[in-house]
């Protein structure tokens, strides 16, 4: 019993990203694992969405598909009205020009410093902000020349966020940005995301299994067993600092 949340579309204008019937299954030897079983979803301009769900429910699978990192077994995805054709060229262009992605495990290039990791992206995007500014925004203005191995997990996560926002993406997708962090550091990271959302008005989707974070969102999608099982609209968004953790 999938919950559909596409009825309100007209009220909020055209969706930035519209997914219909997204399905993804993996073959593991003889068994077929259905990670996503037909998800319909819209992300609207300037929206802050939190995707909640227990571990293994298919959150990452969904976000990877939304970010153009993976190809669905079935279903469609439309970015600003244009249906994705899943060709390698189209996906590459989409990732490079529209999406800022924050990976659950940061995925920094170990041989590059914080600044260089950000430069890696800004050098190939159309209207980036200076790498230093991006790092400034995540509170790492003084760690520009540190290598990933010289930084804590939280700091690495913030570099990953800086790398994602530096291109001024149309969409910011974050996979468990606080998953590996303690409360204090997690809060710092969330504040950064909150501030960036306010300042840049970037459409943002965050995955978490921590329901406390849901209060930050305009809208909360709950995923269970490969389907959207629940949608909540928050009347009032709470700042990261005020979250009851």
């Amino acid at each position: 019993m999938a919950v559909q949340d596409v009825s309100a579309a007209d009220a909020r204008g055209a969706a930035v990203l519209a997914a219909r019937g997204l399905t993804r299954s993996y073959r593991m030897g003889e068994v077929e694992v259905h990670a996503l079983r037909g998800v319909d979803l819209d992300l609207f301009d300037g929206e802050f969405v939190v995707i909640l769900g227990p571990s293994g429910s298919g959150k990452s699978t969904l976000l990877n598909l939304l970010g153009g990192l993976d190809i669905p077994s079935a279903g469609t995805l439309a970015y600003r009205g244009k249906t994705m054709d899943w060709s390698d060229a189209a996906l590459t262009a989409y990732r490079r020009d529209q999406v800022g992605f924050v990976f659950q495990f940061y995925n920094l290039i170990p041989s590059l410093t914080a600044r260089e990791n950000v430069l890696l992206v800004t050098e190939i995007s159309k209207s980036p902000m200076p790498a230093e500014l991006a790092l400034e925004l995540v509170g790492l203005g003084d760690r520009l020349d540190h290598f990933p191995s010289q930084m804590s997990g939280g700091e690495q996560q913030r570099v990953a966020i800086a790398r994602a926002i530096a291109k001024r993406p149309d969409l910011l997708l974050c996979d468990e940005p606080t998953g590996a962090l303690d409360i204090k550091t997690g809060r710092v990271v969330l504040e950064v995301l909150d501030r960036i959302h306010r300042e840049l008005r970037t459409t943002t989707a965050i995955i978490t299994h921590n329901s406390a974070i849901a209060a930050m969102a305009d809208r909360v999608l709950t995923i269970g067993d490969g389907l959207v099982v629940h949608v909540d609209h928050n009347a009032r968004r709470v700042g990261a600092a005020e979250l009851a953790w």
Partner: protein
Amino acid sequence: MVSALDRKLLRDLRHLKGQLLAIVLLVTCGVTTFVGSMTMWRSIMRSQQDYYERYRFADVFASLRRAPETVARRLAAIPGVAEVQTRVVADAALEMPGFPEPVTARFVSIPCCGPPALNRFHIRAGRTIAPGADSEVVVSEGFATAHRLRTGDRVTAVIQGRKQSFSVVGIGLSPEFVYEIRPGDLMPDDKHFGILWTSRRQLEAAGDMEGAFNDVAARLEPGASEPEVLVAFDRELGRYGGLGAFLRKDQVSNRFLSDEIRQLKANAVVVPSIFLGVAAFLLNVIFTRLVSTQREQIATLKALGYSNLATGFHYAKLVALVAMLGTALGVLGGIWMSHAMTGIYAQYYRLPQYFVELPWRETVIACALSTTAAALGVFGAMRKVVRLPPAQAMRPEPPASFHPSWLERLGVDRVASAAGRMILRNVGRRPVRFALSSLGIGFAIAILVVGWFFFDALDFIVDYQFRNVQRDDAMVTFNVPLSRDAVGELRRTRGVLRAEPFRAVPVKLRSRHVTYRTALLGVDPSGELRRIIDYDTGPAQVPPEGVLLTSKLAEILRVHPGDTVTAEALEGRRPVREVLVSGTVAELMGVSAYMSLPAIHRLMDEGPSASGAFVSIDPDLERPVYARLMSMPAVSGVTLRTAALASFTGTSAEYMLFFASILVGFAWVIAAGIVYNSARVSLAERERELATMRVIGMTWIEVWLILIGELALQVLAAIPVGCLVGWGFAHLAASSVESDLYRIPVVILPSTYATSVAVVVAAAIAVGIVIRRRLRHLDMVAVLKSKE
């Protein structure tokens, strides 16, 4: 402004410098042998061509007993003949002050005025003989060098029993005697044999040759029919005791040189191809693994919006840098190697100059080859990554199979400890990678085996040829075939222990379309000083009837035992007979045809006679025996076994051992390089696993043992493979060196296998120690904190 991606490249370069250096050296080794021997081959070939052309090397040659000069005009009139040069040639004994061993020389006449029309010589020092000067000589360079002769020195010769003194006016070279070899010998022997050019008048007077000649060379017009010219020559010269005209390709010096060039080419192709091929293979294996360790980084780059092309280009730069650096060093090494080899060559192939050209073409080929090999490795590994959507590629590569590996199914793990089980499981899960790494190490062993095999083979040849086949101390040749009394006289000389007659008849052997000029050697079936030994099956007997051919000659003539060949004698009554091939014998040096003495006398329709004798000499009485031999008018030449041996080890062997030493040196580099890379990549791939083991309380030695255990298994598996492949390579190398002059038997001593294996094991141990250092400094925390 350096892009971030290029900065990653630079940092990767620095981080991987040890591994990359090993790869660079690998490429260097492959390219050095390839470029070195190719350059060498081309240099000698060009030098030869240039020499022949500029010094008018003749196309046709013929020796005869004596013909009046008027015959020359008839020869010149033969259709296809452009130019004829007659000469007088005489063999003589030389008396070299302070040198007691027998020395013989071949005197070659030069026209009174002006340079010869054909076979001109090149004056290295001094001048040519003055017109009208009778007692002046130009001495060949090899002989002059061996005896430190300089212009102004004097030499004394005994020509046809008459003693004469000459003054040396020049040192010379001739395209006819690039390889200064005594007729019938296999190796030049500069101490005991030389070429002397002197005036025609002098030689005519000394040899009773006034107005006559006994040797002739001719140049042909383009498009002349060579067989017809030869037939015409033999027709004209037959009645003057002609020994059969022959073409340039059968001229002794040219044949040796051309054979050598052919061999060099085979050598330049076969062995370096093995090398370059091995290097390319290793490059491929190493880069495949190197790129695999960067799987996640590649996926991340893709996820960030880098296209496959941009990512591929990033790694292509790495490959290009390594391949080009290796090639550049290899070309330098190759130039050095060709210079060094030319130096060795110049000692026995005497050319006025060696052109060493920069090997552009070889460089391009080598560079393309190594780059392609590396690129294939890189792109093979990358394709696996970029084929997947980034989300998939970012996940660590799943184990190849979720089933128990074949090793486990065999129950191997039940007998092993936990650590042993980890090692085995790792091997079993990636059998292809394990096999490839093992094969790489095997190649290192194989190359060592080939390198050392040359040493074994040369030892074998020396032992075979100079201790088992030739047991005489000297071979004495007579001016003309004499009665057996002459041998009896030798036997009675004080100090001569044994003297066994032989009869050598110059012949043309013919079988269908193939003709081969050689000598039939009649030997005493009960003789002991010169034995006929098949290097495979042992001593053979001269048959009472028919001829025993060396396998090589049978191969050239395309005959088998039981067939017949036509033997046309070029001496005496010049009978032409059908002779039964009664057997073949695989010898290592030369191409011979053996008959028993009675059989050859029957063939020649003659009584017991001898062309010379094999003698053994009392070591204490060598000097008087030599003096006595040289004073006999009937003796035209004495070839010492020890001199032949020295000549062999100093010439062909020296070159081959130089080449082999380079192979061996490079094999060390390859062995260390492949083992080191294998270990480093294992370390990189399993950093997390190893760090985890450290974290749960294993000592670093235990962790090291797990890592080293896998390496040890690779080396273990490589040993039989390496020995087998080495044996195969040795066969390939041996067949590429084969020529009329000598064959290389594939003898590989157990000690060669053992040493080759030991070297690789030593390299593995050294690498194990280096890796241990790295492991001790493994930063567990850094490794663990960055990931799930």
